[in-house]
């Protein structure tokens, strides 16, 4: 077998777009693969199709390695996933009543928001359901290691990419839908997001706050899960050729916050967001004119007109890493620039490694 082992310290190919010899897709990937062909994963994807990622030694791909369900019996499980449940009449009525009650509460202002402006009801009933088709069908997001996100206060640090920050929305949804405690991620947003009409109030209502130390510390002290994208615009607006190369992590403000709040840092690697709007040029003068950090020219924008706003349907994997504890640092470590820089580098390296590893498990950009 010409199988590469992930553990062997070899050079990791980054260019995943290169062509592979086309072969007819095997009908049952769990059956013995053709000679010379790498084994495919034996697991079923969320949409009920057999997973076509290459398998590692365990017989599954890197995405499904932690899946608790049994392998095999693929046909039966595919069939089950395909058959919709008939909706009982009573259920239907309950849904109608719920929708009407929701409409009434919204119309009369009978709902609560927290002091930061987080509107739980709106987020759970309207905003996240709007993002869910993107998550489940369009980008077919898979997560790994989400159960390692603890239940108390924690600072989640992720790579940023994609020209428009869809990665933040998908991470939020991943934690709400797939974390055992259905946690809401409180994201530290850029001021550009909060000052933009319509987007600003909506992101506030979905739980975002301005990236300000005071707010972040208070949220962490309250046991909230706070998310930060330290690369900022340097990450989200970077050239496509720099994909999956982490940019500078700001000035390490997030490390100081985690050290002060004494909460663990959870490194997160998001794969797939780089390819939704591959940015090939930045029109600087237009960006300056519009007071934006960059004005993107992507594969599809502005060439395809309004259609160019449609992101590409890449395959996403969000990998949640093991928490990095901060409580073994001394109490005044936040005021020690060396400690802050060192921890910041550690987090950055961890995320970079996670990205490389996850990229290896992905068969192509789109599948």
């Amino acid at each position: 077998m010409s199988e590469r082992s992930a553990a062997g310290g070899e050079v990791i190919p980054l260019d995943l777009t290169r062509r592979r010899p086309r072969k007819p897709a095997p009908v049952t990937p769990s059956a013995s693969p053709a000679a010379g062909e790498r084994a495919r994963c034996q697991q079923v994807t969320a949409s009920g199709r057999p997973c076509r990622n290459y398998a590692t030694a365990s017989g599954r791909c890197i995405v499904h390695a932690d899946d608790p369900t049994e392998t095999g019996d693929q046909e039966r499980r595919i069939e089950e996933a395909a058959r919709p449940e008939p909706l009982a009449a009573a259920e239907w009525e309950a849904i109608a009543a719920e929708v009407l009650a929701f409409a009434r509460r919204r119309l009369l202002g009978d709902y609560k928001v927290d002091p930061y402006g987080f509107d739980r009801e709106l987020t759970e009933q309207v905003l996240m359901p709007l993002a869910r088709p993107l998550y489940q069908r369009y980008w077919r997001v898979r997560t790994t290691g989400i159960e390692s996100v603890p239940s108390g206060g924690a600072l989640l640090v992720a790579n940023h990419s994609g020209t428009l920050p869809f990665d933040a929305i998908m991470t939020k949804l991943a934690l709400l839908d797939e974390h055992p405690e259905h946690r809401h991620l409180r994201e530290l947003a850029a001021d550009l997001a909060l000052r933009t009409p319509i987007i600003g109030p909506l992101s506030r209502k979905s739980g975002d706050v301005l990236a300000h130390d005071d707010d972040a510390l208070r949220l962490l002290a309250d046991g909230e899960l706070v998310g930060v994208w330290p690369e900022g615009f340097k990450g989200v607006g970077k050239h496509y050729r720099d994909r999956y190369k982490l940019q500078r992590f700001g000035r390490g403000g997030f490390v100081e916050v985690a050290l002060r709040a004494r909460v663990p840092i959870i490194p997160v690697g998001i794969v797939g967001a780089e390819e939704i709007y591959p940015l090939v040029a930045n029109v600087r003068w237009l960006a300056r004119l519009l007071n934006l950090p960059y004005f993107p020219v992507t594969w599809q924008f502005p060439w395809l007109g309004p259609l160019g706003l449609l992101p590409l349907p890449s395959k996403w994997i969000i990998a949640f890493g093991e928490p990095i504890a901060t409580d073994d640092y001394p109490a005044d470590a936040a005021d020690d620039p060396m400690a802050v820089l060192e921890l910041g580098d550690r987090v950055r390296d961890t995320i970079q490694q996670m990205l490389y590893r996850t990229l290896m498990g992905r068969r192509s950009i789109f599948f």
Partner: protein
Amino acid sequence: MADRGRRVLITGIANPVSCALAARLEADEGVEYVAGVDLVEPDAPLERTEFIRADLRSPLVAKVIESTRVDTLVHLGITTTPGQVGGRSRMKELNVIGSMQLLAAAQKAPRLRNVVVRSTTAVYGSHYRNPSLITEDVATDAPPRSGYAKDATEVETYARGLSRRRPDLTMTILRLANTVGPTVETPLTKYFALPVVPTVLGYDPRLQLLHEDDAVGALERATVDPHPGIYNVAGPGVIYLSQAIRIAGKVAVPLARPLMPWLAGMLRQSGRVDFAADQLQFLLYGRVGDITRLRERFGYEPRYSTREALEAFIESQGIERAIDPEAVTAAERELLGVLRRLRPTGDTAAAEGTAGAEEVRT
């Protein structure tokens, strides 16, 4: 001197909040004497408060402080809207020059021990770069450059100058959030009384409100039991402007941002709402102060949350509702009934097999 009871001088006594404070101090046995200074006499029936007609801008103020032998000065004589006094330049003069004179006189008053100055959370400005909850020490990016908020910023500067030069004084600065209630009249209360409420399209600020009873309560506490420092005073919690409008049963009319100055001009001319530039900014981004220090160090727990303050205000001012909650609830019931009647046909299409058929028969 403490055993003789406090002697309190309140400026701006014609203001309803000042009147309420004076009434509470009258009822307090620890307060020996209450005097109120203003240009106009208060309407409220005050019993033992002595009214002194004086202009804060004149040096006469020093004589008032001296002759009344007060140990506590409560400075509430700050005008919030130009309409009240006939023009912005006069308002600025009354606020800034008046406070300067008053606090200069206070510096020279040997008997004075305790100074309370009313300020506003508007000193933080309304800016998207402000933290979600603004603490008292935070240096905000956009200090207000106009209107009442700028005056308040300057008054605070004088107050801090005074406490620097007179370290023996206890200086309490209370930054009150937007105050609502049965008697106060502010641009915000008038805004909610409009038949339809104009908002800015695409923006939804968070509001933090203070019930006037809590404003008076906090001022009373600062007067009789000084805890020097600067405190945000507001009801706990926030509501969105859109939510507040719905609670009030009003209809919001979102307008494009460039139209707002024009609308503000119209409202000002018709005498309905006195909206200044900084209040337009408030309609974009709002502002919310952190009240942890008020609760923990100052030791005051507001009785009304932001939402309760709004509800009490709507109740007390008899603000007309365009949307009746009972009508909405009735409509909900009606719709649900219609859906129930429609169900059999709708369901046979959706459900399959015997379950659907049985449903039709029953």
